[in-house]
Structure formats: structure tokens, C-alpha cells
């Protein structure tokens, strides 16, 4: 142990400032308001610059693939005349196999530009491989800190594959057992090395995704003559939804509905050693998306540049079994072994296509590479080993951590709408809770909260009054 837990956590602000090179206090405008657009714009990475940086490392310009067979399957179970065209943006074609290369590219470029000796990231997912890959290309050293195994030493297979990938790109990988103190170990690494914090939640990481939304809007317009009706993004920390929606808007696709989709893991505790290997999904699930949507500033930087509630028109969940089912369908009907992450959106797209007329267009905005550990077989074999029941049946009987129910028929797939009003209320409650004792909301804060929740000032005021018991 380099330093005591309390001592390192007390140095958090200084370590962060040095490691991301951003003074977040400069953007504060109220008791909790800050100038979000200014924070992003000051980085200097507009969408053309981001595209140029990404082009230099072969990031982006991925194919848009129409899933004609899955569309037909949706039409086979939909009401007559229903069944929108489903497309997927094949982000697995990026250098390290996922859209996370877009997020890593600007961070690593910025680290090199500012003269940092290396980059570090706290992530158990594709993002680690992306940072390691970009760092390799840039000639920077790289350390990835993962939550990787439980107290019995059982590794989550998908994370084991990310360990291998990061090491293949020449990164040092620190593997930890379960717990939020990963952040403490990460701070120790940053303090010792002076590396750049390639956090998932800096402006660089979010601006890097704007090219994805922009590209897919242009590609759909080229292939189908108009912008997509719906774009679905698998939702965890909020970056994917935020960056994609911003990119769509910059391309002019302002009428496109942005849908966030997560795997329902309700009932499982994200910091529980017991539950760690019983999730069967490592990301794109409600264990991240609910807390991050209702309070984004719980991230490893002072202000999270991923603010999904500003951008989502709809938020849906699907079950574990439904995602495994559609993963099989994607392989067997479209010849694409991909996932797991994008397949959460694909399960939702399969259902939502049935709600729309056949001339409408739905885009699943990512795929990721699959392989050993990252495959339904690896997850379901581990689930069985841990005593989780794996059956075919009605997906509504799926119970996270207890029973994975794989649909018996494609007509059984469904989405559950998350009540966005409830999410907005929860966000505003978190905002009020975050105020220091005696601090009051002022005009700029009410406007900020209305922007954050895509509502109006009087909506925010009503909830603030409710919380304070002044109805």
C-alpha cells in the first residue's frame, strides 16, 4: 500500500487536477450549476478536429450494415404493415474492436500533446483495451486498473479477456478484487506515475463519440435518403448516449429519437463480492445506468461530461435472457458474431421495430468484437457454475442473479420503459442533496437543472418545493 486510504482520498482533487489538466472550478456558475458547453468547447476538439485525430489512428468510418434478415424476423412477429428497417453501426471494425476507440483517441492524443509520459484508466471494459491500443500507437506508456475477480479468485470471463487484450497492447494491468476502492488504487497510480487520467468521463472522451452520431446520420441519409427515426444506444455511464446524441444533432438529425437501452440487473448490488460474478453482464446494465442517469457527477472526475438525461428521449430495459437470445439471432441470421454490449440495443431495436411502420429506420449504434470470455457461452457456463438457473421460457420470469430465462420465441421479446419523470425527480433530489450545508439554489441553478432534466424552471421548482416540504 503506497499511502493510507483516507490520506489518498483527501488528495483526490489535487491528483485529479494534475492528471486531467483541467481546472473544473473555472466552469462553476452557481451553487451546483456549471457551464457544460464551455467545458467541452474549451478543449478545442470540434467534430472536424476529432475526425482528423481519429482518422490518423484508423478509428471511425465504420460500416453501417442493414440487418435485413432480423428485420424480416421482426416483421414475421409484428402486426401487419409494422416492422421498421434495422441497421447496425459495426463499431467492431475499430482498431481494438469497439466504439471505445473513439473515446480513447482524443484522450491519448491530448496526453501526448501535453507531454504526459503515459495514460492510465480505471476500467474493466473495452475502454481499457482502447486506451492501451491508442497508447501503443502514440508511443505512450499505459496502465489499466480493473475490477477483475471475486474473493474466491474467480475472474469474470469478459474482464479476463480485456486483461489479455490490454496486455497484448503492451499495457500494465492492475487486477483488483471487488470494491469501489478501485478508485483509491487508481489515485495511487496517478500520483505515483504522473500519467494522464484517460477517464471515461472527461470532455475528450465524450467529444470523441460525436463522430459516431455524425457518421451514422450521414450514412443512413446516403443509404436510405433520410435521417434515422430512432437511434438506440446501450446505456451505462452515459457517454454513449451523450456523445451519439450530440453527434446526431451536429449532423442535423434533430428529429431522430434517441433511446437509451440497458440490461435490467435490478436486485444485484454493484459493490457486492457475492453478486460480482452473478451479473452475467459487465456493462450496459442498470447497475451503472440508473445511478449515472440520476446523478452523473459520481464519476472519477469532478464534472462528468456524460450527461445522458439531457439527451435521451426514451429509456428502456431488456432482460439478460433476451440479450443472449438476440446475440444468437445476430450470428445465425446475419453472420455477425458481435457483442455483448451492442446487443442490448439490438434486443430493444427488435421490439421497437415492431412498433413502427415498415418504412421507418432504427439504428443500433454499436457492435463490439466478441471472442473467448466475451461470449454468451462463457457467461452462461459461469452462471450455471454459480448455481444460476438457465432455462428457456417467458423472459418476464428472468431474475438477475437467480434465473436467466432465454425466450422460447422471438415474439416474447419486450422492452420495459423506465419512467423518465421518476428519473428526473431522482436527479433533482440528488442535486439538492449535493448542496453544502446552508447553500441555496439561485437563478442559474434552476436554469441548469431544467437543462439537465430537459424540463422547465417551474418543473424544477415544483420538485424542489416538494423535497423541502413546501407543496
Amino acid at each position, binding site marked *: 500500500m503506497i499511502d493510507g486510504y483516507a490520506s489518498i482520498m483527501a488528495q483526490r482533487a489535487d491528483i485529479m487536477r494534475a492528471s486531467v489538466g483541467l481546472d473544473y472550478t473555472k466552469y462553476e456558475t452557481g451553487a451546483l450549476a456549471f457551464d457544460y458547453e464551455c467545458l467541452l468547447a474549451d478543449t478545442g476538439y470540434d467534430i472536424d478536429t476529432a475526425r482528423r485525430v481519429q482518422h490518423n489512428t484508423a478509428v471511425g468510418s465504420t460500416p453501417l450494415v442493414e440487418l435485413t434478415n432480423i428485420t424480416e424476423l421482426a416483421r414475421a412477429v409484428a402486426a401487419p404493415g409494422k416492422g421498421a428497417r434495422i441497421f447496425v453501426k459495426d463499431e467492431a471494425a475499430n482498431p481494438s474492436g469497439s466504439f471505445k476507440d473513439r473515446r480513447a483517441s482524443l484522450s491519448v492524443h491530448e496526453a501526448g500533446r501535453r507531454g504526459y509520459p503515459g495514460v492510465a484508466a480505471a476500467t474493466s471494459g473495452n475502454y481499457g483495451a482502447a486506451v492501451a491500443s491508442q497508447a501503443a500507437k502514440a508511443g505512450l506508456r499505459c496502465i489499466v486498473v480493473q475490477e477483475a475477480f471475486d474473493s474466491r479468485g474467480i*475472474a469474470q470471463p469478459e474482464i479476463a479477456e480485456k486483461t489479455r487484450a490490454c496486455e497484448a497492447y503492451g499495457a500494465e494491468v492492475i487486477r483488483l478484487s471487488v470494491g469501489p476502492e478501485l478508485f483509491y488504487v487508481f489515485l495511487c497510480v496517478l500520483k505515483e506515475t504522473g500519467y494522464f487520467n484517460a477517464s471515461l468521463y472527461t470532455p475528450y472522451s465524450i467529444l470523441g463519440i460525436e463522430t459516431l452520431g455524425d457518421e451514422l446520420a450521414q450514412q443512413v441519409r446516403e443509404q436510405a435518403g433520410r435521417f434515422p427515426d430512432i437511434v438506440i444506444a446501450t446505456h451505462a455511464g452515459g457517454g454513449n448516449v451523450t456523445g451519439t446524441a450530440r453527434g446526431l444533432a451536429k449532423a442535423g438529425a434533430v428529429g431522430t429519437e434517441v433511446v437509451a437501452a440497458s440490461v435490467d440487473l435490478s436486485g444485484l448490488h454493484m459493490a457486492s463480492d457475492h453478486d460480482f460474478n452473478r451479473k452475467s453482464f459487465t456493462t450496459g446494465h442498470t447497475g451503472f445506468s440508473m445511478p449515472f442517469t440520476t446523478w452523473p457527477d459520481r464519476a472519477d472526475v469532478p464534472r462528468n461530461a456524460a450527461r445522458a438525461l439531457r439527451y435521451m428521449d426514451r429509456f428502456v430495459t431488456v432482460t439478460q435472457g433476451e440479450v443472449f437470445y438476440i446475440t444468437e439471432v445476430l450470428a445465425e441470421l446475419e453472420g455477425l458474431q458481435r457483442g455483448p454490449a451492442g446487443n442490448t440495443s439490438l434486443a430493444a431495436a427488435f421490439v421497437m421495430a415492431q412498433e413502427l411502420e415498415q418504412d421507418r429506420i432504427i439504428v443500433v449504434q454499436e457492435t463490439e468484437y466478441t471472442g473467448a470470455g466475451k461470449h454468451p457461452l462463457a457467461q452462461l457456463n459461469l452462471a450455471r457454475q454459480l448455481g444460476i438457473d438457465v432455462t428457456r421460457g417467458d423472459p418476464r420470469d428472468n431474475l438477475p442473479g437467480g434465473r436467466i430465462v432465454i425466450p422460447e420465441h422471438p415474439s416474447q421479446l419486450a422492452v420495459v420503459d423506465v419512467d423518465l419523470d421518476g428519473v428526473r425527480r431522482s436527479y433533482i433530489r440528488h442535486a439538492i442533496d449535493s448542496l453544502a450545508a446552508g447553500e441555496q439554489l439561485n437563478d442559474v441553478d434552476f436554469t441548469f437543472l431544467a437543462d439537465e432534466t430537459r424540463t422547465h424552471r417551474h418543473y424544477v421548482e415544483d420538485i424542489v418545493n416538494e423535497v423541502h416540504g413546501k407543496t
Partner: protein
Amino acid sequence: MADVVAIDTWVEIRRIELAPDQRAPQVPADTRRVPLELRAKGFLAAPARLGEQAEIVTAAGRRLCGVLSEVNPAYTHGFGPPIPELSTIGAQVRSMLREQGRCK
């Protein structure tokens, strides 16, 4: 006593970062009962025996100490046997498309 592992061998070390009583206040009860453990790989900086203290040089060039736990640690993640509950999905959906004339 275990054999001495030669300098520059690719190995894994393990160490306890936080004992149960040092864990963060927000950690749930089951996680609090166990320590936060760290595992890292690198090249041995000096000869050492399995189960004893050792120093490694990591891929990023850092020197880390811990108990030498594995020599040339394997990647053991894979796929495992096929899952019967998944095996019939392909045939099912292809037969549905066959009815539409889209599949042989």
C-alpha cells in the same frame, strides 16, 4: 521449499491493498468481510521463490512488490461447452424466415 524462479521470468504477484478493517465505509457487508486484493504481472526483478515476497518490473516500467503467485500465468478464459438452451435458436428463427421464402 519451492524452486527459485529466475530473474526476468514473466510472473504474477499478489498483495493485499486494504485489509477488511480498512475498507471504504460505503462497501456492503459481504465485501467488507474480505480484503481488497491486487494482482499484477511483470518480469521478476530478482530471483525469488513461489509464495515468497518478490519484486517485478511491469509493462509500464513500474516496480511492484508482492507475493510471487504464478510463473508465466496462463489466460484460462474461454467458451466452455455449448449451452443447449442456445443451440436451437438458430434453427427456429431460420425456419420462420423459410416460411417467408428468405431462407433455404
